[in-house]
C-alpha cells in the first residue's frame, strides 16, 4: 500500500472513531453514598434539630445511591428500605419497564445541594429541594443512547420511619 493510501485509510478510520457517538461508559457503580449538603435554615413551620439534619442527609444520600444502583442493574430489591409509597412504586415500575426493553440508566452522582423547605409540625414529614449535579446515561444494552452532564432539580417528600427517613415522593422539576 502506498503512503497516500495508508494516510487516507487512517484518516477515514480516525474520522469514524471521532464522529461515532460517545461510547464511554462509566462502569464503576457508586461505591459510596453521594455527597449531600443540607441546609435547614429556612425550614418551616418547625425547625430541624441537628441530629435530624444529619439523619436526613445520611438517609437521602443512601436513597440516591440505592436508586442509582437499582436503575443501573434493574434490580428493584435494591430500593428496599430507602423508598416507600409512590416513589417506590414509580421506581419499581421504571425498573420493570427497563428490564423488559433492555434499557438501563447510569447515574454518576456529583453531589446534592439540598434545602429543607417544609418540616411538618409533628415532625413526621419533610420536603426537600434538591439541586443535583449528575452525569446521566441511558443505555440500550451496552449502547449509549443518551448522555449528558446535567443539573437537575428535584422536589422530594420524606417520611420519618422507625429509625430512618424514607423517600415517599421524588419529582424532577424545571425550577423551584
Amino acid at each position, binding site marked *: *500500500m*502506498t503512503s*497516500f*493510501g*495508508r494516510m*487516507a*485509510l487512517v484518516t*477515514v*478510520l480516525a*474520522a*469514524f472513531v471521532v*464522529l*461515532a*457517538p460517545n461510547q464511554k461508559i462509566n462502569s464503576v457503580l457508586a461505591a459510596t453514598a453521594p455527597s449531600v449538603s443540607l441546609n435547614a435554615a429556612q425550614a418551616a*413551620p418547625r425547625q430541624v434539630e441537628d441530629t435530624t439534619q444529619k439523619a436526613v442527609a445520611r438517609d437521602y444520600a443512601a436513597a440516591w445511591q440505592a436508586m442509582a444502583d437499582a436503575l443501573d442493574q434493574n434490580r428493584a430489591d435494591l430500593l428496599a428500605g430507602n423508598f416507600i409509597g*409512590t416513589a417506590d*412504586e*414509580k*421506581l419499581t*415500575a*421504571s425498573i420493570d*419497564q*427497563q428490564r*423488559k*426493553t*433492555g*434499557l438501563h*440508566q447510569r447515574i454518576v452522582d456529583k453531589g446534592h445541594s439540598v434545602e429543607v*423547605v*417544609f418540616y*411538618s*409540625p*409533628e415532625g*413526621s*414529614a419533610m*420536603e426537600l*429541594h434538591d439541586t443535583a449535579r449528575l452525569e*446521566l446515561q*441511558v443505555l*440500550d444494552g451496552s449502547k449509549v*443512547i*443518551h448522555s*449528558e452532564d*446535567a443539573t*437537575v432539580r428535584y*422536589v422530594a*417528600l420524606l417520611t420519618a420511619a422507625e429509625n430512618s427517613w424514607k423517600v415517599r*415522593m421524588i*419529582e*424532577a*422539576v*424545571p425550577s*423551584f
Partner: protein
Amino acid sequence: MTNDAIDFEQELSTTLDPVAKAILVCAGVLFVVCCLGLYGFAGELNVPATVTAGNGLSVPTSGSGDATFYLVGPGTAIKRTVQLGGNVHLTADDLQNAGRYIIALDGNSASFYVSAAPVHSIALLARPSRVPADTPNVITGTAFLFDRYQNLVLQPQPVKFDLEVNGQSVTRTETSKDGVAYTKLNSSKKEGPAQFVASSGNASVRRVVQEVASDPCNIRMTAQRDPRGILVRTDPIRDCAGNPVPDGTIVTFTSTDSQGKSTVDARIKRGIAQAQLPASNDATISVASGVVVGNEIKWRNE
C-alpha cells in the same frame, strides 16, 4: 465531474494498489453508513419544555426509514421502532408521572418535563388525634395535594381547613406551597369528636379529632367517716368550659396528720373520684389533679 475530481480519481487509481483501494472504499462506505445510521436522517427533536401529566404528545420527526425511539422517565422506559418522517405519538398513559423525561431517536436526544395535573386527592396529617378542648393552636393539619396520578401538585392552590364539633365550626384557608399547606387551629370549647376536613377544588379528605375536656377548672371534695377510715369523694369534675373531665384522669388525695402523710391516687369514674384514707383524729386533707388544687378539709374525729 470537475477537473479536480477527475485528477483525484486518476491519482487514486494510479497510486493505490487494488487491496488498499478496496479497503478504503469499504471504510468510506462504512463511515457513511454509520453516520447515517447513528446520526440519522432525523433533525433536532422538537418537544415542548413541559407537558401536563396525562396529556399525550406528538413528536415530529424528519427523514425516512425506520429508527428506534426511546422514552425514559419516571415509571417509564419505552423502546419502539418508528417510521421517520411522521409523528411519534406518546399516549396519556406514557406521560402520567411528573418529572423529567428523556427521548432519544436516531442519535438525537432531548429532555422535557411533565408537571402534575389538577388536584385530585389530598393526604391530610391531623395531629394529635385527641386534644383538650378550648386550647389555642393545639390542632395541626398538614395537607399534601396530589393529582390523579399521585404526582405532587406544586402550583399554589387554596386549601380550606374546616374543624367542626357540635355544630361549631372554625374555618381557615391557606395557600399551598410546593404541594403542601398547613394550619394550626384552636380546639372547640365543647368536647366531642371534631370533624377535621381539608379541601381543595373538588378534592376533600376528613379526619376525626377527639376533643376532650381539658384540665379541671376546680375540684371540690367532701369527707365522711367510714368504718375503715375516712371516705373522700369529689363533686363531678369539669373543665372551665363545663365539660366533664374524662374518666381515668388521676386525682390525688393527701392526708397529713401527726403520724405523717398518706397519699392515695384515684381515677375519675363516672365524673367523680373517691378514695379511702386512713382513720385519723386530726388531719388536713387536700385534693389535686395535675396542676389544679382543690379545696382543703380540716378533719376532726369527734
